[in-house]
């Protein structure tokens, strides 16, 4: 391996900074998975009967399903009987008062760069902090309430806004959708709920920060965002976990509903622990994310920066049901060491004149494997619809892999689908060229990677673009054209 490649690898495979653990006293909860456990879980969360029914039905569906194997990744399957499905710190705030949060947990968020005190936060960003199975704290609730926006933990939403949750939960991702969605529907612990009323532009960025701390627990969070007619919201999720030698399972479900003219922008900065050099440990990130553009002229946009996890299987999708609706998917997936990522999107065009754009950038280094899988489906009634896909891969070194699996089907002749794909290797010649012009090796590498991903990162909300860049260790300075 040349010096350049080494530098490049060390830069991308930079040591994981969030691998510490927090000393927390947890509530006792039995391990394993059966109907009794689910009842216990539901009871602990003081849920209404309908919620328990939803869980039990999902559990029964899950029991009938097979764990999927069709993706381009190999790993040791999780032992579902040996997982902990509920992991809640003993000490929890009852009134959303920060004083009641376990100081160790507060310190954890502090260390992660997400101080929970409102005055310390980024102005204009409300945060829901989820620690293992429960939401610890949600900030700026009152301020949001003034605008009629509901932003709270899913547990709270089930109690306080049952009619909304009941109406929409499982409406985009039904429990039977897939193996992990069914499991999540049975045992989901917490997550965020956002509701933006009619003709309201959410006054702040909403964000949820997920932290897995407990080694034995799985994390199954559930997020639901509903934007009523003419509403708009930008939401961001961030995630980290400690370094353990054992793999941990994270199987989330995210559902987005956009009614007429509503606009939802969902961004993810995923930085779960990815395992060590030998591929030991790390998170299994098996997530179902789907949005439905229910109303005419609505828009859903997914932007993701995926850098972590040992194995990622994730396909944020949009169902374009409303006429003139728009779906977007912007993704940067970086894999190093022995990471495996199989990620992409689905754009299902049902309404007339619907549009979708897919821009996917994969960067693979080390012995990692990075696959893009994208499905574009144009239904019979989707006249005048258009899709445009670009899918670029960049390889660093000789031992990694990049794969592209486009699935395109169109039942409507008046619609068009355009797909472009490229694969390039970060050339030592490119690095030499820039260095010959006086630019240092590190800067040359940053510039090349930054140039590769900038079309995607510019889609992130400004507040988070900085974090994203830090994460990629890319110096934007001086290279913004």
């Amino acid at each position, binding site marked *: 391996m040349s010096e350049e490649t080494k530098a490049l690898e060390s830069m991308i495979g930079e040591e994981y900074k969030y691998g510490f653990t927090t000393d927390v006293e947890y509530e006792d909860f039995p391990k394993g998975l059966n109907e009794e456990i689910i009842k216990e879980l539901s009871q602990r969360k003081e849920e209404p009967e309908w919620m328990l029914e939803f869980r039990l039905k999902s559990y029964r569906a899950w029991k009938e399903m097979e764990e999927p194997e069709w993706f381009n990744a190999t790993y040791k399957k999780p032992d579902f009987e040996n997982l902990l499905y509920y992991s809640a710190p003993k000490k929890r705030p009852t009134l959303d008062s920060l004083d009641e949060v376990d100081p160790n947990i507060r310190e954890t968020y502090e260390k992660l760069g997400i101080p929970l005190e409102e005055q310390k936060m980024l102005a204009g960003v409300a945060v829901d902090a989820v620690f293992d199975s429960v939401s610890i704290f949600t900030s700026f609730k009152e301020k949001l309430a003034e605008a009629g926006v509901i932003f709270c933990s899913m547990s709270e939403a089930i109690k306080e806004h049952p009619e909304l949750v009941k109406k929409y939960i499982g409406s985009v991702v039904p429990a039977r959708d897939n193996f992990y969605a069914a499991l999540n529907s049975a045992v989901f612990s917490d997550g965020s709920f956002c509701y933006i009323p009619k003709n309201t532009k959410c006054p702040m960025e909403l964000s949820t920060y997920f932290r897995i701390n407990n080694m034995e627990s799985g994390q199954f969070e559930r997020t639901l965002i509903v934007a009523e007619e003419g509403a708009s919201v930008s939401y961001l999720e961030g995630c980290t976990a400690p370094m353990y030698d054992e793999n941990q399972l994270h199987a989330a479900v995210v559902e987005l509903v956009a009614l007429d003219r509503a606009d939802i922008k969902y961004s993810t900065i995923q930085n779960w622990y990815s395992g060590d050099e030998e591929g030991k440990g790390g998170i299994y990130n098996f997530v179902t994310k789907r949005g439905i553009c229910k109303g005419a002229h609505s828009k859903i946009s997914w932007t993701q920066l995926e850098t972590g996890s040992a194995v990622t299987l994730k396909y944020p999708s949009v169902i374009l049901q409303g006429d003139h609706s728009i779906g977007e998917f912007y993704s940067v997936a970086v894999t190093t060491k022995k990471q495996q990522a199989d990620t992409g999107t689905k754009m299902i065009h049902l309404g007339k004149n619907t549009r979708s754009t897919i821009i996917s950038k994969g960067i693979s280094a080390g012995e990692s494997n990075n696959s893009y899988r994208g499905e574009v489906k144009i239904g019979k009634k989707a006249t005048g619809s258009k899709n445009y896909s670009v899918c670029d891969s960049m390889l660093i070194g000789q031992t990694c892999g990049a794969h592209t699996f486009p699935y395109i089907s169109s039942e409507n002749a008046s619609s068009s689908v355009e797909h472009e794909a490229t694969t390039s290797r970060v050339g030592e010649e490119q690095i*030499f060229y*820039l260095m*010959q012009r*006086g630019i240092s090796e590190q800067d040359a590498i940053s510039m*090349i990677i930054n*140039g590769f991903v900038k079309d995607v990162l510019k889609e992130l909300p400004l507040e988070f673009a900085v974090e994203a860049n830090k994460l990629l260790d890319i110096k934007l300075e*001086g290279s913004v054209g």
Partner: protein
Amino acid sequence: MLEIKNLHAVVEGEELEILKGVNLTVNKGEIHAIMGPNGSGKSTLSKVVSGHPEYEVTEGSILFEGEDITEMDADERAHLGLFLAFQYPVEVPGITNKTLLREAYNTIARANEREELDPLEFEDYLVSKLDVIEMKDEFLNRSINTGFSGGEKKKNEIFQMAVLNPRLSFLDETDSGLDIDALKIVSDGVNKIANQDNAIVMITHYQRLLNYIKPDFVHVMMNGKIVKSGDISLAEELEANGYDQMQKELA
């Protein structure tokens, strides 16, 4: 300014020598031309001098302004004022010419404790250099060499030279691929850049270029060595008789 002494070089990790004892001295204010058959080591020489990591110097040394730069990284050599116009300019998608040049210009300025230019000042400076080779300003905002035609790439190299204003430039077959008009424009540009304080080493296969940019010295490189040096009449001799004849005479 540049003193190359008994330079031997191999491809990193391999045995076979490509440069087999090159000697070359370039003083400021001079223009040199290196000619030689395909595969004789001309490009390799220019890359070894500018610090390409693919090659390893096994013997000899390179002095620049009296300083031994044989082991220096490529970027540090560039900071000293060394420039290479590539025979095959590299495409770097996603980074615009302007971004590259601003970053390069300011990095070099910083290294030499000169004042950096802010984006607006730099813009003016950059635009002022477009005229040197009649470059269209749309090239500034395009990704480096990406999708450029062969001739446009070569022009772009000289444009970069004009902007960075190096002390010593290696121009590796800059004339190859330029049309008749472009050759004249680019040559005029190089002549404008050349002055009493800098120096130029041109690598070329054609005497035609030397009619536009008059060299003070012409060297012939064969099989990893400079085998003959002289003035422009050497190029004329080559044009008339070819390398084969010269090889025989030398033997």
